[in-house]
C-alpha cells in the first residue's frame, strides 16, 4: 500500500460477557479504497466496525487499537467520537426503515446531520438537502423532503440514509449489508449509486456483506472472516479465481452458480463453533477436510500467498491452485 492508511485496526478484540466475538483483527483501509468484508452470521464483520466507532454497549470488552489518520478512536472522549461518527466516518445499515426516525420528515432528518456536522442552518441547509437528494437519485426531491419514511419504499429509504451519510462529507462510508433487505432490481440500483458516489466523492468504502457476489462487484480488495478473525485477504479478482483458505474455498463451492452445468453443491459440514466452545487452534479445523493434528496447536497467522494475498492457514502447501 503506497499511501498511509486512513483507518488502521490492530489486534482488535471484543468479548461480550467474557465470550469472544472478535479474536484479533488487523485491517487497514486506504483513502478512497473499497474493501469488502464477507463472512457468515456471527463472524464479527459488523462488530468490527461497531467496536471501531464506539457503538457497542458497555457490556462489551474491547482491546486493541483503531486509529483514524493517526488518532486513536478506542476509548476516545465522546466529543472526539461525535465528530468522527457521521462526520469523517459514516455508516449505513441493512434496515433503513428502522434506522430512520418514523415521526420526522426525511428532509428534516438529513438537515439535522448537516447542522451537526457542517453547521448549516435555514436556507443553506434546505438547499443542501435538495442537492443531496438529487445526488442519491431521489426523484421529485422538492416534494419528497416533506414526507415520512413510511411513505417511501425500502430502496428510497436507503437512498435517504445514504444522503444522510453523505451530509457529513465522510472520508469513509461503512455500509453494513446495505442491500440485503432489498429486492434484486433495487439492490442493483443501490450498488450502482454507491459505486458512482464513491467515484464522485473519493471516499473510501467498507462493504460488509454475506453475499460474495455483491462484494466481488463492488470492492477491489476482500477480507474473508470466520469466527472473529480474518482468514484470507486478497484482491477480489484473485480471491474468487484462486482462493487458498479452505473456508473461502468451501464458501465458493457452496454457492450455486448462475452459469455452466448444474452440479451438486459442496456443503461445508457442521456449523460455526459457539463462542463458548472455540477450538484451541484454527477455528475452522473441525469442519476442514484438510485439517491435520498441528491445526489444533495454535491459531494460524497470515502466510503470504502472493503480494497482497494472505491466508491464515498452515496447510497452504496442500491448498494448491485448483
Amino acid at each position, binding site marked *: 500500500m503506497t499511501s498511509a492508511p486512513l483507518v488502521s485496526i490492530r489486534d482488535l478484540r471484543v468479548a461480550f460477557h467474557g465470550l469472544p466475538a472478535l479474536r484479533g483483527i488487523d485491517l487497514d483501509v486506504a483513502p478512497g479504497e473499497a474493501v469488502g468484508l464477507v463472512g457468515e452470521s456471527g463472524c464479527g464483520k459488523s462488530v468490527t466496525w461497531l467496536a471501531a466507532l464506539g457503538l457497542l454497549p458497555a457490556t462489551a470488552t474491547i482491546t486493541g487499537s483503531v486509529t483514524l489518520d493517526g488518532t486513536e478512536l478506542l476509548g476516545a472522549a465522546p466529543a472526539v467520537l461525535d465528530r468522527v461518527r457521521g462526520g469523517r466516518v459514516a455508516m449505513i445499515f441493512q434496515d433503513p426503515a428502522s434506522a430512520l426516525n418514523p415521526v420526522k420528515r426525511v428532509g428534516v432528518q438529513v438537515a439535522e446531520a448537516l447542522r451537526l456536522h457542517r453547521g448549516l442552518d435555514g436556507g443553506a441547509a434546505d438547499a443542501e438537502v435538495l442537492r443531496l437528494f438529487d445526488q442519491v437519485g431521489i426523484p421529485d426531491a422538492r416534494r419528497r423532503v416533506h414526507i415520512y419514511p413510511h411513505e417511501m419504499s425500502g430502496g428510497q429509504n436507503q437512498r435517504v440514509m445514504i444522503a444522510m451519510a453523505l451530509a457529513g462529507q465522510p472520508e469513509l462510508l461503512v455500509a453494513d449489508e446495505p442491500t440485503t433487505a432489498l429486492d*434484486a*432490481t*433495487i439492490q442493483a440500483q443501490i450498488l450502482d449509486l454507491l459505486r458512482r458516489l464513491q467515484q464522485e466523492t473519493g471516499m473510501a468504502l467498507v462493504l460488509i456483506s454475506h453475499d460474495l*457476489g455483491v462484494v466481488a462487484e463492488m470492492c477491489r480488495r476482500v477480507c474473508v472472516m470466520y469466527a472473529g478473525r480474518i482468514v484470507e485477504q486478497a484482491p477480489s479478482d484473485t480471491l474468487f479465481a484462486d482462493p487458498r483458505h479452505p473456508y473461502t474455498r468451501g464458501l465458493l463451492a457452496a454457492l450455486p452458480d448462475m452459469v455452466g452445468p448444474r452440479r451438486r453443491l459442496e456443503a461445508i459440514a457442521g456449523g460455526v463453533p459457539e463462542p463458548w466452545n472455540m477450538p484451541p487452534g484454527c477455528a475452522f479445523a473441525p469442519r476442514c477436510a484438510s485439517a491435520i493434528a498441528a491445526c489444533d496447536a495454535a491459531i494460524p497467522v497470515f502466510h503470504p500467498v502472493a503480494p497482497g494475498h494472505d491466508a491464515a492457514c498452515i496447510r497452504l502447501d496442500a491448498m494448491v491452485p485448483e
Partner: protein
Amino acid sequence: MTLLSLDGVSRVYATRRGIIGRPVPVRAVDQISLSVAPGRTLGIVGESGCGKSTTGRVALGIERPSEGSVTFQGAAMPTPGTPAWRRMRGRLQLVPQDPLGAMDRRLTIATQVEEPLIIHAIGDKSDRRDRVQALLRDVGLRADLAERHPHELSGGQRQRAVLARALATDPALLVCDEPVSALDVSIQAQVINMLTDLQEARGIAMLFISHDLKVVRQVSHEVAVMYLGRIVEHGDPEAIFADPLHPYSRALVSAIPVPGPRRIERVVLTGDPPNPADRPSGCAFHPRCPVAVAACAVTTPDLRPAADGRLVACHLVPAAGGTA
C-alpha cells in the same frame, strides 16, 4: 401427467385507502396457469409483492382462488374446512421461510414432528415413535435433538425439523416458500442438497418459491418469473437464466451480483415495482421497461410460446411461427 394444476387462477383482495376510503380490489395473483408433475420442481421467482407466496397458498388450498380452478391429483381442490379438504392437507405441505415462527416454542421437536401423524391418525403410539425417529434421521438430525426445544437448535437444524414435520404425512407436493433465504451460505447448501435428495428418494413434487435466482436454478426443472401478479416468462431454467427473453426477466437475471465476468449486460431498472393496488395499464412492467413501445401501455400481452417453446408475455418477443 400432472399432480397439481392451476388454471386461470386469480386472487383478489379488497383493501381500503385510509379509514374511510372506498375498498379497492387488489389482484395479488392475476390469471395464472401452471402445473407441477410428480417428482418435479417448479421454481417461482419474483420480487416482493409479485404474488409468488399467494400463488403458493392457493396451490396449498389454504386460499380459495377468486377466479379459475385448482386441481390436485385429478380432482378439484376441496373447499377449505371440509372433511375432504382436511384429509387432503396431509398430501400437500408447506416449508416456510422462518422455521422458528412455524414451530411451537414450548413443544419438543419430537412432539411437533409427531403431531401431523396424530392429526391424520397414522399408526399407533409405538409406530409413531419409530416414524418420528426415521423422519429425523432422513433430514439429518441427531437422535438426541428430538427432545430439545426449537430455541435450542441452530437455524439450519430448525429448518430440518420443519421439513421432517412436513414429510411426516408422506406428502406428494411440498410448497417451499423461501426455505433457505434466512440461512447462511454453507448451511443453505446443506439444506438444498437435502431437499434434492429427498425429492429423488421419495418422488415428491415441489413448488419452490424464492427471490434467489441462483438457488432456484439449482433446484428447479421448470421456472416461472412473476411480476405484479402475472407470469411473464415460463420455461426451462437453463434457457431463462442464460438468455432471458422478457425485459423484466432480463433485468432480474442481470441484477444478480456474481463473482467473475458476467454473461448478460446489466440492466438497471429505474423506479420501484408499482403498488398492486395501482396497477399500470397494459403491460404492468411498461413504466420501468427500457424497451417499451406505445402498445405496451394499452394492451396487456398474453403469455404465449416463443420460438424455443418457452412462454413469454411481451409484445416485443416474436411468437413461435409468427410475428410480434
